C-alpha cells in the first residue's frame, strides 16, 4: 500500500506529544526498530505469534510481558499508531469524491469487502482487495478481511460483551456441538484482567445472561433511547435495554485520553481512546523490549517435528520479495483470524498429519459459525423534537438476550437466543434527496434537524454444524501458491425459526415504544455467513481429542506447544460480539503456556 497522492503531508497526524502519553513514547521507537529488523536464517525466538490483530496483539503483549522474546508475523503492511492514521478527522470534502469509492473500483477490487457498512474512501485501504486474495464460495460467504498490522482491531465496532455461564453450558445442555472444556468461572478473572487493560465503558445491569464487567462510566443515551428503554422495560418485564458496552474510554486509563467523540474510530485514534492492537496492545508489548514484529510476512504453514511432536516454527513467504524463510520458536500462537489460522493449519501437512497439523480429530475446518443478522426494525417518532445531541457517539444501545434463559423464557421452536444492537438519531440534511421541494424554503428546512429515527438490529446464535466448514481447494491456489480456502456454510432451521421471533420481538418493542412507520426486515439472502464478521469455530476447543482440536487452554490436543487463541477456538458462537472473549482466552492461554514452559512440559 503506497501513500495516496491526495494525502498532503501536512495532514499526517504526528504521534501525540509526550505530555499525555509518556508511557508510550519510548516504546513506539522500539516498535519501529523491530519492524525494520532483518531476520537471520534460523533465528530462534521463545514464541511466535501469527497475526497481529485483536488476538495476536494481546498474545504479544502477554508473552512479552512474561519475558518471552516474541516474534509477531503479519501478512499485511506495517501500520503505525499516529503516522498511519492518514484519514483521521478528514471531512468528506477533503477526500476524493467526498468520500465515495468509484463504483467500478468496488466491482473490481472490493466486491465483498465493499458490503461492510463502514467501507468508504476513508477506510478502503484497511480492507484486502478481494481479487488479490480470492477464495472459493461453495455457498455464498462474505469473508471480511483486514491485512495489516492490527488486523480488524483497527475497524471493529468496539462492542464488548462477556459471555455468561449459560453460554459455556449450552452445548452440553441441548446437545449441539461438544461441551466446552471450560466454564464461566474459568474465564471470569481473565475478563476482569483484559477489560481493565482494554478499557470498556458500560452500565452494570446485574443480568445472569450478560455478566457485568470492569466498566468505565457509561456513555449517555439520547432522549429517544431513554424513552424507548423505559417503554420497552415496562411493557416487557423480561427485557432490558442498556447503553452499549464499548471498548472506548470514557475516562483516562493508563495514560490514554478519554474519547473526544469524533465518531470515526476506524480512521485511527490519535488519543488512543479507541482500543486497537496498533494503539494499545502492541505498544505495551513493544515497551518490554521483547517484541519483534515483521509485517509483509505471509505464514504459509507450521513446521512440525515428528521426533519431538512439537511445532518448531513457521514457514513464511515475504510478500514483498517473495523470499521464503523459516523461523523457529519454543511455542507458536495462531492468531491469524478464525479462517486465516485454519487455512494455515490445514496447509501444514506432514506424514503424521496428512490433513493438517493437529487435525487428528478430522474436525479442523468444521463447525464454522457466525452470528446471523439482517433482521431489523426501524421506526420514526414525532416526539422529542426539542431534543438533540452534541456528540458523535461511537456506540449504540443493546438489548441482551431474553429467550431460552430458563423455563419461563423457553421456546419450543428453536434453541439458544438473539440480542439486539440499536441506535437513534435525527435525520440529517441528506433526507432532502427524498423530499419534495426546491429553493430557499427547501434549503432552510434542511437546516433544522430532521425527525428522530430509531433502529434495532438482531444478532442471533448459530448452532455448530459439521457441514458448515472451510477446506483447502484441491485446484485453486493464490498468487503465492497457497491453496485457496473453500467456504461452505449456510443457515439451518434453528436459525431460520429464531429469525422469525427476532423480527416479531423487534417489531413489538418498537410499537410499545410508540414509533411510527415501523419497518421490520428479515433479509437472509443479503446476509450470508461471514458478514456479521463474527466467524468462529473450525479449530474448536473440547474435552475429547477425538472430536475437538484444542483443549481447555487453547492448546492443540495433538501438538502441545501449538496454541490457537483467535475465533477458530470457539466451540459455540453465543450471541455476544466475540472479540473480548478471544482476548480473555488469549491471555489465559499465554499464562498457561508460560507455566508449562517453566515446568518443562513444553
Amino acid at each position: 500500500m503506497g501513500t495516496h497522492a491526495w494525502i498532503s503531508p501536512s495532514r499526517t497526524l504526528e504521534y501525540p506529544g509526550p505530555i499525555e502519553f509518556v508511557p508510550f513514547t519510548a516504546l513506539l521507537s522500539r516498535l519501529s526498530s523491530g519492524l525494520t529488523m532483518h531476520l537471520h536464517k534460523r533465528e530462534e525466538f521463545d514464541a511466535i505469534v501469527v497475526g497481529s490483530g485483536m488476538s495476536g496483539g494481546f498474545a504479544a503483549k502477554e508473552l512479552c510481558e512474561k519475558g518471552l522474546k516474541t516474534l509477531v508475523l503479519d501478512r499485511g503492511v506495517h501500520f503505525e499508531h499516529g503516522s498511519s492514521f492518514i484519514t483521521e478527522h478528514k471531512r468528506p470534502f477533503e477526500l476524493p469524491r467526498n468520500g465515495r469509492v468509484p463504483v467500478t473500483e468496488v466491482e473490481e477490487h472490493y466486491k465483498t469487502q465493499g458490503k461492510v457498512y463502514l467501507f468508504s474512501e476513508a477506510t478502503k485501504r484497511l480492507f484486502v482487495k478481494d481479487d488479490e486474495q480470492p477464495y472459493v464460495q461453495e455457498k455464498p460467504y462474505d469473508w471480511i478481511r483486514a491485512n495489516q498490522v492490527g488486523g480488524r482491531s483497527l475497524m471493529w465496532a468496539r462492542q464488548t460483551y462477556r459471555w455468561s455461564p449459560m453460554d459455556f453450558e449450552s452445548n452440553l445442555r441441548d446437545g449441539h456441538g461438544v461441551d466446552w472444556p471450560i466454564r464461566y468461572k474459568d474465564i471470569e478473572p481473565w475478563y476482569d484482567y483484559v477489560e481493565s487493560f482494554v478499557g470498556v465503558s458500560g452500565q452494570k445491569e446485574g443480568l445472569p445472561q450478560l455478566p457485568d464487567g470492569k466498566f468505565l462510566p457509561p456513555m449517555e443515551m439520547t432522549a429517544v433511547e431513554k424513552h424507548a428503554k423505559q417503554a420497552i422495560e415496562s411493557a416487557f418485564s423480561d427485557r432490558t435495554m442498556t447503553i452499549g458496552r464499548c471498548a472506548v474510554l470514557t475516562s483516562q486509563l493508563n495514560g490514554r485520553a478519554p474519547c473526544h467523540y469524533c465518531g470515526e474510530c476506524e480512521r485511527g485514534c490519535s488519543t488512543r481512546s479507541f482500543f486497537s492492537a496498533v494503539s494499545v496492545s502492541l505498544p505495551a508489548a513493544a515497551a518490554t523490549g521483547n517484541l519483534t514484529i515483521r509485517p509483509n510476512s505471509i505464514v504459509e504453514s507450521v513446521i512440525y517435528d515428528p521426533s519431538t511432536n512439537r511445532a518448531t516454527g513457521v514457514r513464511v513467504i515475504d510478500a514483498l520479495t517473495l523470499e521464503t524463510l523459516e523461523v523457529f520458536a519454543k511455542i507458536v500462537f495462531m492468531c491469524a483470524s478464525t479462517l486465516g489460522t485454519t487455512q494455515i493449519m490445514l496447509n501444514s501437512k506432514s506424514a503424521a498429519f496428512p490433513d493438517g497439523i493437529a487435525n487428528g480429530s478430522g474436525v479442523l475446518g468444521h463447525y464454522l459459525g457466525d452470528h446471523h443478522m439482517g433482521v431489523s426494525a426501524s421506526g420514526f417518532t414525532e416526539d422529542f423534537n426539542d431534543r438533540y445531541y452534541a456528540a458523535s457517539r461511537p456506540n449504540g444501545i443493546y438489548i441482551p438476550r431474553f429467550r431460552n434463559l430458563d423455563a419461563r423464557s423457553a421456546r419450543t421452536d428453536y434453541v439458544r437466543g438473539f440480542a439486539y444492537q440499536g441506535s437513534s438519531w435525527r435525520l440529517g440534511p441528506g433526507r432532502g434527496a427524498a423530499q419534495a421541494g426546491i429553493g430557499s424554503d427547501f434549503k432552510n428546512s434542511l437546516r433544522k434537524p430532521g425527525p428522530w429515527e430509531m433502529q434495532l438490529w438482531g444478532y442471533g446464535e448459530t448452532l455448530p454444524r459439521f457441514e458448515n466448514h472451510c477446506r483447502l481447494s484441491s485446484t485453486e491456489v493464490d498468487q503465492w501458491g497457497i491453496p485457496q480456502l473453500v467456504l461452505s456454510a449456510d443457515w439451518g432451521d434453528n436459525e431460520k425459526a429464531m429469525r422469525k421471533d427476532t423480527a416479531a420481538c423487534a417489531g413489538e418493542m418498537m410499537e410499545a415504544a410508540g414509533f411510527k412507520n415501523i419497518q421490520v426486515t428479515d433479509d437472509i439472502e443479503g446476509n450470508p455467513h461471514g458478514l456479521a464478521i463474527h466467524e468462529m469455530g473450525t479449530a474448536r476447543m473440547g474435552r475429547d481429542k477425538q472430536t475437538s482440536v484444542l483443549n481447555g487452554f487453547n492448546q492443540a490436543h495433538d501438538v502441545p506447544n501449538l496454541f490457537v487463541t483467535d475465533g477458530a477456538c470457539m466451540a459455540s458462537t453465543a450471541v455476544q460480539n466475540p472479540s473480548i472473549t478471544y482476548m480473555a482466552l488469549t491471555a489465559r492461554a499465554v499464562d498457561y503456556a508460560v507455566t508449562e514452559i517453566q515446568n518443562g512440559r513444553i
Partner: protein
Amino acid sequence: MNRREALSRIGLIAGGTLSASTLSGLLAGCSTPPAQDYVLQFLSKEQFDLIGSMANQIIPDTDTPGAVGAGVDRFIDNMLANYYPAAESHLFVSHLDAFALAYGQDVKDPTSLRNLVQRQDDAAFSAGHDEQDPAIQFYKKLKGLVVSGYYTSEVGMTTELNLKPYGDSRMDISVEDVGISWSN
C-alpha cells in the same frame, strides 16, 4: 470553519485532553477553498453551466452560498468522471441534453428555469408517479447529487450547517443549544 471558529469549538473539549498535534490535525482541515480554475473532466461547458443553474434552483444562495457557491457543479462533474461507471454517466448526460433540447431558451432564463425545475420536482414527488420514467429518474439522481454534494462540501458542512464539534459527550441536549443541524 475558520481557524478562530475551530479554536473556539475546540474550547468545548472537555478536560482539554487532545494533544497539540491532534489539534493541528483538526485545524488543517479548515484550509483553502478549492481552486477557481477548475478543469472540466466530463461535462462540456454548456452542460456544466446548466447543471450549475439547475443545482442553484434546488439549493439557492440565501444568507449562505448556494449549490454553485459550494462547488456542487464541480462535484457533479467529478462524480460523472470518476465515480459512476461510464455508461451510467453518459446516460445521465443524455437526459441532461434532452432536457436542454426540450426547453430550448427557457433553460437560460432563471425564472423560466426555476419553473421548469419546480415542475420536475413536483412530478418526481407526486403521488403515484412512475419510478421507471427516465425523466423522473434523471431528476431524482440530479437532486440526490445536489443534496449530497452540497451537504458534504466545505460550505455546506461549515457555513450552512454546524460541523460536528469534538470533545462533547452529551447525547441529550436541548435543540436550542445548537439551533441548527449537525452536518452529518
